[in-house]
């Protein structure tokens, strides 16, 4: 059963539409991420759920009840902010107890629940500390404990990790996920960091300019992006424009700047149709042995990409690079476990293969064209 339901929700601030006709359901106990670039409206969605903003139109439901007119005080929602918002004049204990005291929980029960929750977030022993004596990570745990202790119906997390340093971000996101699963708490997590969203969520809802563009599990989002924007925003990829030259039920042949790419047919696009194409770097496979035996690769349907290696980034576990081919242009590639595998040289000629099952494509829409236009603009500025 859906625990949170947003129906045709619109939010306008004056002329600006921050959220446009948004429909979303979040199941009980599910953790869903709202992922998108800054200014896409994801925080506005969260603030509407919390009751800090009123939707211009549409309905918000929690637990089957419409909450549009319920003030934040009565929504039974736990919220954790990006800047922690730990009450600076109260001790850790008083911060966590605040919501309980408002619910007239007192004495031993209060103490027990506060200690239990501080234990849950790993802050037992910090009861008497003042916020200015805590680190960023600890403050964020206090904020989490304060939200969890009232046993909210729904937990809302507004970029809770973005003020923390990289190592802490990793560990706290794991802990948040663990606690959320243990408590079976329906959770909405807002972030602009795609890796964060992928790692923590049951499902990811990708937003772009006030609209929801795709809601799926992290792996589906990654493997089957339904638009150029999602393909580009979630994970690294090489994004190209192409034209369909032949298509049948099995395979679709796409011309990308003179490079013939074969893709498994997923969406039927008529011959001559304009498409976007996405190939993940790890699927651009270095194939030194196929340089001369090119025919063999082509028979499997894999496209052969020959070109000069522009640069290499040896990152340890992987080597990243870019190859520039006369036919097809630039492609990102990635070689895992480079110590036990052949690696090309910077500036040298190299051959790569791209298999049909690794080529993701889709019919080009206006929104997709905008992604390419923006990218072209950025490239022009960079050079």
């Amino acid at each position, binding site marked *: 059963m859906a625990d949170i339901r947003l129906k045709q929700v619109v939010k306008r601030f004056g002329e600006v539409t921050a959220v446009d006709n948004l429909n979303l359901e979040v199941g009980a106990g599910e953790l869903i991420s709202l992922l998108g670039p800054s200014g896409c409206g994801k925080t506005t969605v969260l603030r509407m759920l*919390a*009751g*800090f903003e009123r939707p211009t139109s549409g309905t918000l439901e929690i637990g089957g009840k419409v909450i549009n007119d319920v*003030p*934040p*005080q*009565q*929504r039974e*929602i*736990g*919220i954790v*902010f990006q*800047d922690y*918002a730990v*009450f*600076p*004049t*109260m001790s850790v204990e008083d911060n966590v107890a*605040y*919501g*309980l005291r*408002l*619910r*007239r*929980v007192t004495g031993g*029960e209060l103490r027990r*629940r506060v200690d*239990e*929750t501080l*234990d*849950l*977030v*790993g802050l*037992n022993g910090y009861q008497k500390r*003042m916020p*200015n004596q805590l680190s960023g990570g600890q403050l964020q*745990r206090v*904020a989490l404990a*304060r*939200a*969890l*202790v*009232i*046993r909210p119906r729904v937990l809302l997390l507004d970029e809770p990790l973005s003020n923390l340093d990289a190592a802490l971000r990793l*560990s706290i996101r794991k*802990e948040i996920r*663990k*606690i959320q699963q*243990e*408590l*079976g708490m329906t959770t909405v997590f807002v972030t602009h960091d795609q890796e964060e969203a992928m790692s923590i969520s049951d499902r990811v809802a990708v937003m772009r300019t006030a609209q929801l563009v795709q809601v799926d599990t992290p792996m589906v989002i990654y493997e089957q992006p339904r638009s150029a924007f999602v393909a580009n925003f979630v994970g690294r990829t090489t994004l190209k424009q192409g034209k369909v030259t032949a298509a049948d039920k099995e395979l679709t042949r796409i011309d990308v700047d003179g490079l013939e790419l074969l893709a498994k047919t997923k969406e039927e696009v008529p011959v001559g149709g304009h498409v976007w194409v996405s190939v993940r770097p790890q699927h651009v496979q270095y194939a030194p042995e196929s340089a001369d035996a090119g025919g063999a690769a082509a028979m499997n349907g894999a496209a052969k990409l020959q070109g000069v290696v522009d640069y290499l980034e040896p990152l340890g576990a992987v080597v990243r690079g870019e190859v520039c081919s006369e036919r097809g242009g630039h492609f990102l590639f990635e070689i895992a476990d480079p110590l036990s595998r052949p690696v090309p040289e910077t500036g040298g000629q190299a051959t790569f293969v791209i298999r049909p099952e690794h080529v993701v494509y889709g019919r080009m829409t206006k929104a997709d064209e905008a992604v390419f236009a923006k990218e072209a603009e950025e490239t022009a500025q960079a050079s």
Partner: protein
Amino acid sequence: MSATTTVPSRGTTALEAARPRSGVNWLPAAYFVAGAFIVLFLVVPLATIVLETLGLITTSGDVPADLYSYMLRITWNSVQLALLTTAVSLAIAIPLAVAIAKLRPAFANGWTVLLTVPLITPPFISSFATILLLGRTGVLTRLWETLGFPGFSIYGLSGLVITQVLHLMPYALLIILAGLRTVPAHIEEAAMSLGGTFTGITAKIVLPYIFPHILMGGVLVFLTSLGDIGAPLLIGGNYRVLPVEIYSNFISFLGDERIPILFSAWIVLLSSIMLIFVRHLLKKTDVAHEFRTRTYTYDLPKLRRGATILCAAAALLFLLPYVAIVISSFGTVWATGWLPNEFTLDHYIRALSDTRPIKSSLIVMSGAMPLTLFVSVFLGQMNRSVPRLAVFDYLSLLPFVIPGVVIGFGLTRAYGTLVIGGIDFAATALILIVALAVRRLAHVVRVISAGFARVDRSLEEAAWSLGASESKTFTDVVLPQLRPTIFAGAVIALIKLITELGTTLILYPPGWDTMPVYIYYYVSEGQIGRGAAMGILLIVVVAIGTAISNRLSGQKGVAAGG
């Protein structure tokens, strides 16, 4: 984080059943009181003046044209004085601020403290210091004439400019210093690496960067000079300015009763235009205040020595009046020699035995201070949570630009004949308490709203989510964080209220003459020593009040921190 996370027992139904208690949200009632205060005691009085003026112009029809040309002449006098004072103050404040902030003079903090002493003194104190030093028998005049220079008179424009600069330059200095603290070091470091020099960088980069602050400092000096009544009354001589014209025509039986009305309305009009400009500036200088940034100082030994000498000379110049006041407060007649003829404690004994002004000041203060603080705090909260009532924020700044005389005059026109429960409102200390609270509202609102800006909005939202009503959130979350700001506001209120003269002169009911009125009276009677002694007592009261407030806020701060 502990390895074994104990899951809190889910479904302890007792808790889930307990909804947060909603409680009564009393904030709207507080907003109403604060808003009503502004409407009743600021908007209504000013509107009364404007309406009476309209009546004067339209119905009687016998306002002679030369009254208007007289008004314009007086206005020009006021503006000329204010412009000169502003120009001279900025010409001193800018180099001084740069020297203190950028050149690391010896005892930099000490100079800043010394130079800001005038801020905690009543504005007119510097005018009788000017008389003591530069008057016809003043010490410096004597020195001047002994050296063979021609004599001069301070009664008039030049004396007024000197007096006002002595008192107002520190305002500009403080604001410009605050501005200089917002200049990020990177900017100057970048300019240095490109080959910039101290003077080049300061003139081309730093000063333009803090231009809003310089402008703000200038505007503050300009407005205070425009509204000043003490100095023009004491040493203005025949140089008449707007507040003096309003006051003298108001208290004198022979005065033209149209003049206070017409002139006040004229000032209200001019001030309202100024306000738009001031508010714009306040926003600009405020945003900059929020940055806490590392600032750059130059390591130039020669200039550093020069800066130290400049600061020392300025401190000497600006403190000289106070030295003169201290000496004269202990002296008998000081007219013929380099020092008073004899020294005595007489003035202090008399000032202290005449307890009425001290008592009046303290009673008025203890009423007006909580009142301004209350109104400022709830206006601040209203301003952040009810944006459509932003007009009140605007109105609260009006006293910033309107001279005290006009506010006092407006209140008498609006409530001079008001009788509540058989008691004549204007004959009690109540009118003075209300008037001073209004008069100094803008200063306190400024301090308090800066404090509100530091209270993160998401803290309130967090409390709401946990079930706290808006008023509960206010008392539990907002107010504790505002505590230091409220104490700072209290100090400003103390200083500003206890030194107020313009409004008080117009309004004080019989028996309620305050310390500034007492000082003004004795100085204008020529009994400078007695006025000086009371002036010193006034400064002592301010110092004690400031110390108490700092102590209280300090203790709370420690308690909150540990």
